[in-house]
């Protein structure tokens, strides 16, 4: 039979990465006790410049980048371990998250020297934060249909249009916007470019979009004849689509796709007590086993990427399965806690936390490529389309 084999070759994170894990744990043990628990639960959604600066001081932001920009030129797997530890210990890592994961790497790969020198050292110091300017009111999963237009004018571009779901735009420094710089709306992938936008630019208006949990993470970012200098074009004019798809690849198979609400599992262990009934322990153990399996998949993908492969289908599978796990977790946990919590106080506290997790859960299978987009990618990989 001719379908491609799904392989997840077991991979060991190297000894240097495991040694780094120990250092990160020691650091987190020192700083986390002073962080409010609701900020820890929100983890990569929690904006904490203090935490990001402290992490930057340790050299743990942009750790793979060249030393001249404040990086340590360490491996992608070292970064993987840092990400795991931040999530596994529910650290408030939201401020620098996007800059470290995708904006910095994008500038490193496609940006010019002026951009790199000006921005990357500030990112690695934990002082400079980014938003993603991809989605628009009429462009979600179908990103190539973006309408925001950057019209070439002397010395730069005049930008008009609207971006939405722009997380953190109200407190971040920059946004990398995907815009049309040439051609017509119907040209799809052609004529798109990426611009580095200072969010304080005149003509850029930021308005909150509150999510169903009452949180202000998202924004609407409106460009009204905003002038963006030519020096802020990232890469080549017209290469935006190529660049943005490579950026999305950074987003897919990391631990944040299955450990975003890891705290639920930890709280479940707490409320079930040290000797739960067999019914409860087997539910807990099955949840642990599913998470462990996801981690094996994700580590295997990281190993393949380190080996120079680009396992796009495998990465999509990790996100599909991982985000569904995160939706199942609070529900399965809630059901068993209702019958098996050790005390009434524990039960009430847990239900509160689980309710928050349940409210956040719909976002997991939407952000960074919906389940349906991912399944389209997998279907293509299986030779079905």
């Amino acid at each position: 039979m001719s379908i491609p084999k799904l392989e997840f070759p077991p991979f060991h994170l190297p000894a240097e990465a495991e040694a780094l894990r120990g250092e990160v744990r020691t650091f987190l043990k020192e700083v986390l006790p002073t962080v409010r628990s609701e900020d820890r639960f929100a983890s990569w959604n929690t904006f904490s410049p203090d935490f990001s600066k402290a992490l930057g001081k340790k050299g743990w932001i942009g750790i793979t980048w060249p030393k001249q920009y404040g990086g340590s030129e360490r491996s992608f797997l070292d970064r993987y371990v840092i990400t795991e530890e931040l999530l596994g210990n529910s650290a408030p890592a939201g401020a620098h998250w996007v800059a470290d994961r995708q904006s910095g790497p994008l500038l490193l790969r496609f940006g010019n020297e002026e951009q790199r020198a000006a921005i990357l050292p500030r990112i690695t110091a934990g002082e400079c934060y980014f938003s993603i300017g991809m989605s628009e009111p009429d462009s979600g999963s179908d990103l190539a249909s973006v309408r925001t237009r950057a019209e070439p004018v002397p010395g730069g571009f005049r930008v008009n249009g609207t971006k939405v779901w722009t997380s953190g735009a109200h407190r971040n420094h920059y946004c990398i916007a995907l815009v049309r710089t040439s051609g017509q709306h119907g040209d799809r992938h052609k004529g798109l470019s990426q611009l580095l936008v200072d969010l304080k630019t005149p003509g850029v208006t930021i308005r909150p979009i509150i999510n169903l949990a009452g949180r202000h993470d998202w924004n609407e970012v409106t460009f009204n004849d905003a002038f963006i200098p030519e020096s802020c074009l990232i890469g080549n004019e017209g290469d935006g689509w190529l660049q943005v798809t490579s950026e999305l690849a950074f987003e897919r198979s990391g631990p944040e796709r299955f450990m975003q609400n890891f705290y639920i599992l930890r709280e479940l262990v707490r409320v079930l007590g040290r000797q739960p009934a067999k019914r409860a322990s087997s539910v807990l153990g099955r949840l642990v086993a599913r998470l462990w399996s996801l981690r094996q998949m994700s580590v295997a993908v990281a190993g393949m990427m380190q080996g120079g492969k680009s396992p796009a289908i495998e990465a999509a599978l990790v996100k599909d399965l991982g985000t569904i796990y995160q939706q199942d977790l609070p529900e399965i946990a809630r059901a068993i806690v209702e019958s098996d919590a050790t005390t009434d106080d524990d039960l009430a506290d847990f239900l509160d936390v689980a309710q928050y997790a349940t409210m956040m859960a719909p976002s997991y299978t939407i952000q960074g490529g919906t389940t349906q987009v991912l399944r389209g990618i997998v279907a293509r990989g299986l030779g079905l389309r």
Partner: protein
Amino acid sequence: MDRESRDMLLETADRFFTERCGRAVVNDVEKGVWPADLWREIEEMGLPLVAVPEDKGGAGGTLADMLALLRLAGSHAVPVPLAETALANLLTAAAGGAPKPGPATLALGNLALNGGRVSGKVERVPFAAVSERFVGVIGGALVVVAAGNAKIDAKPNHAGEPYGTVAFDNAVTEFNGASPVSADRAFELAAVMRAMQMAGAADKVLATAVEYCKQRVQFGRPISTFQAIQHMLAELASCVAATIAAAEAAARDADEGGLVDGGRFSIAAAKSQASEFAQRIAAISHQSMGAMGFTHEHILHHYTRRLWVWRRDFGSETFWGDKIGAAYAKAGPDALWASLSASRYAA
């Protein structure tokens, strides 16, 4: 076994299973026919001795080599106790015994050894009705009992394989040596063996469903072109991928950590995961193949029925979930991430 030798073994075995272990053979076993020729050829190839040292007549492979072969066997629904015999032989050789030819199986359960004789009863022993000897671990002893000295109550499993209950009543042993592993450990090794067979079967289910949907034409086009079908098969792929990744990681950890206690947690997690996803894999594949896949004539049930049986063999997701959950609860919330990230019951 070096990489090249293992690849060669797997290629040869794959060709052999494809040629000699087709639908008719699997169906005949369900009717109660013992495929004597198939077993003879499997022995001639030395497969049951894959992980027995060369000085005992084996191929000198590792536990990992054996598990890789059994994943392959799982993807062919090989309807003879190759897995059970290979593991029984590995354990017997490690206990200082000399594995004998003939199909063997594992009687892992609550047995007692008194004055060198074995008593007790084990249920759901795989291939009990066709095996020539039973291997068990009792305390520190590994015992081998000939089938003639056991009482076998045949009870085919739901995939039509000759499982059964085995009772020993002061049975004499044909071998009794110091066991290289505890009884619990023998059960773990059997669990990782089944998890790898499940990975093989899951892989075959995916390939079968994908191939079918590309061929099957309805409404004037292959049903694989319908987005509803594409998304079902993509979800199937994710469940299959998790099963494979978990089983392979457990096999690696069991091998690297050594026969005595390598990969204990990984095995538990992998068997729990494989068992839990077996139903989703069966459900989606059957849904995608409609009535055709529900017939006895099609081969899909060779794999889905085995997944349904194997998920209970050597510990279901409830059994292994309880082992993991009890250990994690005991260690408490602050140990959770350290244990999980180290693939251990307690860090």
